[in-house]
């Protein structure tokens, strides 16, 4: 159904416009043709109503020839043809109305004088139909813009939502409570250490919150954040946890999704180092490989570690994010061997300004 019928106000507005057009047509034909005023009113008001309905067909013409996808040399003749055909049809229907008026009412030879007015009718009809086409094009563009705007808003809301969810899952409550417990222990024996830890923790949280609002950040920032996190965990695990980071110079400014490494590094601590009596070293590495960057996080783990411990959620999030952002251009490879675990992410080499 034509959208004009879906809203009452639109329909009333349309009918009002056509009544005005009918009035104008009466003035025009009374002046420019052999019709008298009464004849013009009797003939043109019904004809205008008929044409009001016929002009709605412009919608289908507009849909058939979308402005963005139709070449001008095809568009103009097609629209002209549609206008001429419609107005011709209208002229024929006008003749029928004139004949009816002549027979039923006492108009004298109206049907014959009508023929003299046909050229003018055709011209006016063509113009009116073209006008209808223009209005339809405008309305379609307007509707499309509104829909696009709404979609953009919806997407924004979705993205914000995902971000918050990601943030929540990226910082584990475990980490916070354990860090607070370390601080609690240090206050008695090493107040300066307690303070240093508090400051570090606050800074990590602050950076995480700021960075979480950005979609992409330079890899060196991402590395810095991961090292921040590990240095906090180092207070807890003492000599059991060590880490190294090797970032190739040319990869430093490559843009990566913010907090992408956080779940991976957390996993390395909680499912790797935490189960090792003697601890071990977590290695962060990033190197260029053609048009991509390979980021690798590896850690030793205990061959006796329980298999059932869930490492799933955080790592699944990483995979989802990569897929959403890069589609097939990114990869995540997990190697889970008895005594070591590693994750390699391959992302496109996208450099920030």
């Amino acid at each position: 159904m034509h959208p004009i019928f879906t809203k009452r106000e639109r329909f009333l507005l349309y009918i009002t416009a056509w009544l005005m057009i009918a009035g104008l047509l009466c003035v025009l034909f009374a002046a420019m043709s052999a019709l008298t005023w009464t004849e013009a009113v009797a003939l043109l008001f019904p004809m205008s109503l008929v044409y009001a309905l016929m002009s709605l067909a412009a919608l289908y013409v507009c849909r058939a020839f979308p402005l963005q996808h139709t070449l001008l040399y095809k568009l103009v003749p097609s629209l002209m043809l549609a206008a001429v055909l419609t107005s011709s049809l209208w002229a024929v229907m006008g003749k029928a109305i004139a004949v009816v008026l002549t027979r039923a009412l006492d108009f004298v030879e109206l049907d014959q004088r009508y023929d003299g007015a046909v050229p003018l009718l055709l011209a006016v009809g063509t113009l009116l139909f073209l006008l209808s086409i223009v209005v339809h094009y405008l309305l379609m563009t307007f509707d499309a813009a509104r829909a696009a705007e709404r979609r953009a808003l919806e997407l924004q809301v979705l993205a914000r939502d995902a971000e918050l969810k990601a943030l929540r899952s990226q910082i584990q409550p475990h980490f916070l409570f354990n860090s607070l417990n370390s601080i609690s222990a240090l206050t008695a024996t090493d107040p300066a250490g307690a303070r240093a830890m508090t400051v570090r923790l606050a800074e990590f949280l602050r950076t995480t919150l700021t960075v979480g609002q950005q979609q992409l950040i330079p890899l060196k920032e991402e590395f810095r954040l991961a090292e921040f996190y590990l240095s906090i965990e180092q207070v807890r695990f003492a000599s059991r946890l060590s880490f190294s980071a090797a970032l190739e110079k040319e990869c430093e400014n490559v843009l990566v999704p913010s907090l992408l490494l956080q779940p991976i590094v957390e996993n390395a601590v909680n499912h790797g180092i935490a189960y090792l009596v003697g601890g071990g070293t977590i290695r962060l590495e990033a190197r260029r490989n053609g048009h991509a960057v390979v980021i690798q996080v590896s850690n030793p783990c205990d061959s006796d570690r329980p298999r059932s411990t869930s490492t799933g959620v955080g790592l699944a999030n990483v995979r989802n994010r990569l897929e959403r952002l890069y589609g097939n251009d990114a990869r995540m490879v997990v190697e889970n061997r008895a005594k070591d675990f590693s994750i390699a992410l391959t992302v496109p080499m996208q450099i920030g300004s």
Partner: protein
Amino acid sequence: MSSVKLKAVVVDDEPLARQIVQEYLGRHQDIEVVAECANGFEVVKAVTELEPDMLFLDIQMPKLNGFEVLELIDRDVAVVFTTAHDEFAVKAFEVHAIDYLLKPFSQERFDEAVERARRTRPSARRKSLDELANDVRRSALPLDRVLIRDGAKVHIIPAATIDYIEAQDDYVSIKAEGRTYLKQATLSSLENQLDASKFIRIHRSYILNIERLAKIEAYAKDSRVVILKDGTRLRVSRAGYRKLIAFL
């Protein structure tokens, strides 16, 4: 007041977390810390050798977690669990009215837990700890590793390495990677805990890891044996044979 001090063992894989328990225990002159442990193996050893009265037990640790430790020690010891954030554990503790400390905790809260541990009768304590251990074990089924205590030593046997298990009076003997381990358990309880798609009770006295099966042979009229890949022969009961056939 007796002049004999209560013996306590403090268990946590984080030095700072142990330090805080030590500090809080400073107020309790009648409790003496006889050992600090950083992993599950050490706890089993310490409890076996030192027979403490009280155990401050972390849940997440290397080698064995707090619940697995509970399964392996003679549990006539007051246990106060400590954990940072573990919804599952907290629920289990509440169900069995066992005291636990959520890190970080205050001295007051700690004192309360110590008092409660002191007051609870050993028999009541033991009962609720047993139930807790059972509950936790059930939630972690099927078993992916079998724990065996051999004096103060603990063996972890991944389920996949087990060839078969044989019933022997009050014990079961577990054959894995060429070795035999004895565990105080019934064959039925292990049958219920192991993955039923891999382990089959083929006889009153045997559970078989189906992956070790080489062939089935007739042994006498109405009686059969299975031959394992390493040549071991095990008898199969009629019910066991039906289960095997249904499985294969």
